[in-house]
């Protein structure tokens, strides 16, 4: 149920994003979702890719600072209120959300939201009890 998310440290300079995405493209790695957290001085690029371990290697070989974080990929029915139900589940279980970003796939009627929470185990439990679907690493690979 845990999805590996790659975080890359990015200096605020032209061309850095291009370098990072090229490093991945050269290794035939597909990006499934991405988000950038930015400050004045630097940014953190967060990526969900199909082959996270290969991606980490590819980026480290290029001398980049990379870390892996375990996040959750929640399947949201693509209708109004879909996201609300998932978030309410977390709120009711007293779980804080650190950040979230959404992506849509060509298949199915679901949107997917990547959520980072402080307590993965409790969140997984809460989602299970409320029939909220989580994607597995393999399902991400197969999108």
């Amino acid at each position: 149920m845990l999805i590996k998310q790659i975080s890359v440290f990015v200096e605020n300079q032209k061309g850095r994003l291009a370098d990072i995405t090229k490093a991945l493209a050269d290794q035939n790695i597909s990006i499934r979702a991405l988000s950038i957290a930015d400050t004045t001085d630097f940014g953190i690029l967060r990526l969900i890719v199909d082959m996270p371990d290969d991606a980490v290697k590819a980026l480290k070989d290029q001398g980049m600072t990379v870390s892996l974080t375990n996040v959750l990929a929640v399947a949201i029915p693509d209708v109004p209120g879909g996201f609300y139900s998932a978030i309410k589940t977390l709120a009711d279980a007293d779980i804080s959300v650190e950040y979230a970003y959404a992506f849509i796939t060509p298949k199915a009627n679901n949107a997917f939201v990547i959520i980072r929470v402080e307590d993965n185990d409790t969140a997984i439990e809460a989602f299970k009890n409320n029939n909220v679907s989580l994607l597995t690493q393999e399902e991400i690979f197969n999108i």
Partner: protein
Amino acid sequence: MRQYYQAEYETAPRNHLRALQSERLIKSVYSCYNNIPFYRKKLDEMGLHPKDIASIDDIVKLPFTYKQDLRDNYPYGMFAVPREELVRIHASSGTTGKQTVVGYTQQDVDIWANSAARAIVAAGGTQSDYIHVSYGYGLFTGGLGLHYGAEKLGATAIPVSSGNTRRQVTILQDFHSDLICCTPSYAMYIGETIKDMGIDPSSLPLRAGIFGAESWSENMRKEIEKALAIKAYDIYGLSEIAGPGVAYECAEQSGMHICEDYFYPEIIDPETGETLPDGEYGELVFTCIGKEALPLLRYRTRDICALSHEKCSCGRTLVKMTKTKGRSDDMLIIRGVNVFPSQIEHIILELGMEPNYLIIVDRINNLDTMTVQIEMGDAVFSDSVKEIERIERKIKENMQSVLGVSANIKLVEPKSIPRSEGKAKRVIDNREI
């Protein structure tokens, strides 16, 4: 437990020391003049002859010796003895260029070993102790220096050398190490490893450590004492003079006693060469009095410190030196404040970051500004912006409190700061003064 290793010298009355130093200096100058072409030429050019040296006070007449002189005479050009008399060669790591090569006769090795033994006893070491030596063994004087000191004392040397840190910890436990000798930064690493292995440091027999070969702050000392549950002592030395043990800390821990019966110290103004009084910071200069193979005269160490002849509660009468601040050629003046890159390095290290940094100094609107670029490495990187910003803030705060001057911090990507094969260029000074 004996208090001093060589009480006769360590607690000698000052006038006895002076007489000994005068006698030894004269002999050394004769040896330099008669046996080392470099010094003969220099003294002749100055119109100086060994007979002009009547006492230790005449030391100011003698010329300075620089690291470059050793390099110019690489490898063995400055030895005063024939090769048959040499029993040991050591060399510096050569971070600033060609390796500096030094040599020792048996007597020189004994002088050095006695100095190191003094250091071990001053740190509370005894003949029954297991001395764990984690300095590198090899051309570097660290490992063999403390090793021979331990054996000279009659203690038991465990020549672990550096590296294989988990095994270091196992040895600390199983081999009953009482005292450890290594660099302060390695001591920190061992401390971390002890923690990672889930071991309580106070459960180890280890009770003290002697740390040197790099400048370290009082903060670093507290960190090490906590991480290893020991008392941490300082030691100073350089291969050109002997090795570790040239100066050593006693229980009072307010400076290091210099073995001035063999290594006579002076503090000079690095610009003018003028001798400075006690308490004033300047460049540390050593004259070897009594060594046979390489009796350097007024060798400029480029280390900055101050001397004190104040009475020490330990009873030793040997002059004390403060911890070294850094090298004279490294110092910056930012808004009137003296800043050493090594101070910045220690702040960075203390926060668990790799010491890959670049200091950029500018003058904007008649005001000096300093920006420190620091590479963001894996060890400290996290997925949280909040966390990274917290570290940035901490670095800034620490710089302000330690240096007394504020710096801008810019976190940069790994490998973006240029590496070099010689000494890493730590400073870019854009000011045109």
